[in-house]
């Protein structure tokens, strides 16, 4: 669940096409089938709008919250070059959030409303960011592998049917390629470094593997709902497809470095061409996404603090009538 929004399994499935004008619906579906994009003022089914708002909003929240675990190491990055690069990456991620909030706003939900839903815990964000970056190596594993997962998701979604989301994602993907290279360079540096550095990156990888396997979300139930979202090009690939794509691209690169993944069953089945693995612990996933993870409380408290501390600045910028007065002493 990154761009593929997390939908609570207990949520009542809407009868998705209820009350929609059949002629407009047919035109809308024909436009998508022709590969044309949907623009903000076009007619769209209520469920299309709702799913897209949820998906883009969750994606925006993930970018802004994702800046927190990585930001943990800005003050103690190993050397000036790494510090500059990490600051640039974190700035990009916050910029991605802005692009995505703007894309979601074109569907009719204000940025303020989205931020309110984030800080009250009503909206979700990518579950991986509820885990801490315990060491510098954790931030390197995040930059490489979490961003790699994000790219797979974002490249797929960039081809979706909603114009503003696709355009934001194209822009985002360009910057993500720097994140990926930066992350890989960091991991390779540690993995080919001193025994202590190697141990550090191995331990970080071991810690992050379960959240990485959770990253794309549980297998999609093949439901009417999923089928329609795929026909509308809201959902561009199943969670399992994206997980397979990720494993196929990155497990060999991890093994190349002689690093070990904590799953004895992980291997590619040469006949089916699919990766086999131990089923991730989805109860843990649900527990964490519903607030029980090690950092959920911290992440939201930090966002609330940031919003609160910025409030007077935002108000002051709006009202320029106050003149700056030179201090007397």
């Amino acid at each position, binding site marked *: 669940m990154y761009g593929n929004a997390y939908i609570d399994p207990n949520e009542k499935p809407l009868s998705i096409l209820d009350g929609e004008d059949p002629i407009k619906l047919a035109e809308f579906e024909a436009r998508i089938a022709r590969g044309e994009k949907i*623009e903000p*003022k*076009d*007619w769209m089914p209520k469920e299309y709008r709702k799913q897209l708002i949820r998906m883009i909003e969750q994606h925006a929240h993930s970018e802004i919250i994702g800046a*927190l675990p990585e*930001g*943990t190491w*800005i*003050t*103690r990055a190993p050397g000036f070059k790494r510090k500059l690069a990490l600051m640039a990456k974190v*700035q990009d991620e916050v*910029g991605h959030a*802005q*692009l995505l909030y*703007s894309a979601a*706003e074109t569907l009719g939900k*204000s*940025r*303020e409303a989205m*931020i*309110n839903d984030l*800080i*009250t815990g009503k909206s979700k964000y990518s579950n991986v960011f509820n885990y*801490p*970056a*315990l060491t510098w190596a954790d931030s390197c594993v995040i930059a490489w592998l979490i961003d790699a997962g994000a790219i797979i998701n974002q490249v797929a979604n960039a081809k979706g049917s909603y114009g503003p989301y696709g*355009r*934001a994602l194209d*822009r985002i993907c360009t*910057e993500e390629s720097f994140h990926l290279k930066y992350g890989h360079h960091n991991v390779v540096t540690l993995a080919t470094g001193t025994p202590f550095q190697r141990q550090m990156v191995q331990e970080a990888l071991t810690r992050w593997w379960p959240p990485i396997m959770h990253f794309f979300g549980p297998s999609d139930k093949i439901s009417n709902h999923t089928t329609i979202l795929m026909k509308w090009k809201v959902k561009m690939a199943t969670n399992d497809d994206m997980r397979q794509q990720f494993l196929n691209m990155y497990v060999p690169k991890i093994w190349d470095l002689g690093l070990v993944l904590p799953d004895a069953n992980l291997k590619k089945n040469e006949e089916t061409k699919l990766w086999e693995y131990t089923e991730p612990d989805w109860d843990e996933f649900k527990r964490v996404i519903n607030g029980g993870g090690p950092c959920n*409380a*911290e992440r939201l*408290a*930090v966002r*609330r*603090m940031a*919003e*609160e501390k910025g*409030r007077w600045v*935002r108000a002051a*910028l*709006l009202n*320029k009538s106050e003149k700056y007065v030179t201090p007397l002493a």
Partner: protein
Amino acid sequence: MINSLDPRIAREKINEDNTIAPLTEMDNWETYEVFHQKKRGEQHEHVGIVHAPNNEMALLFGKEQYGRRGISVNIWVVKTSNVFASDYDDADIFETVPDKQYREAGGYKVMEMINKYKKENKVK
């Protein structure tokens, strides 16, 4: 009290159950459309949106958001509320008909006339 791994957060001494008043509409100001020019001589092109309290800040945010990798030489910002757009439902206003060939370059063919003239008048 949050004992964060991030020293910048730890020193803020934040309570986990801090609550704040919700953001009200316009807390994040209004939106501006951003246009950039990739290099001198090219057209400005729409790149996206920023939220800003005024023109100057919109330029600053526009530069930071869309121009931070040196791909722009110039930026315009326009309040979204000042953009008047045609409706996609009215897309048929752009349709044209085949008998408007008189306004296309391809509507003016002369080779046949020239060749006929050359043949009849034995022009080499």
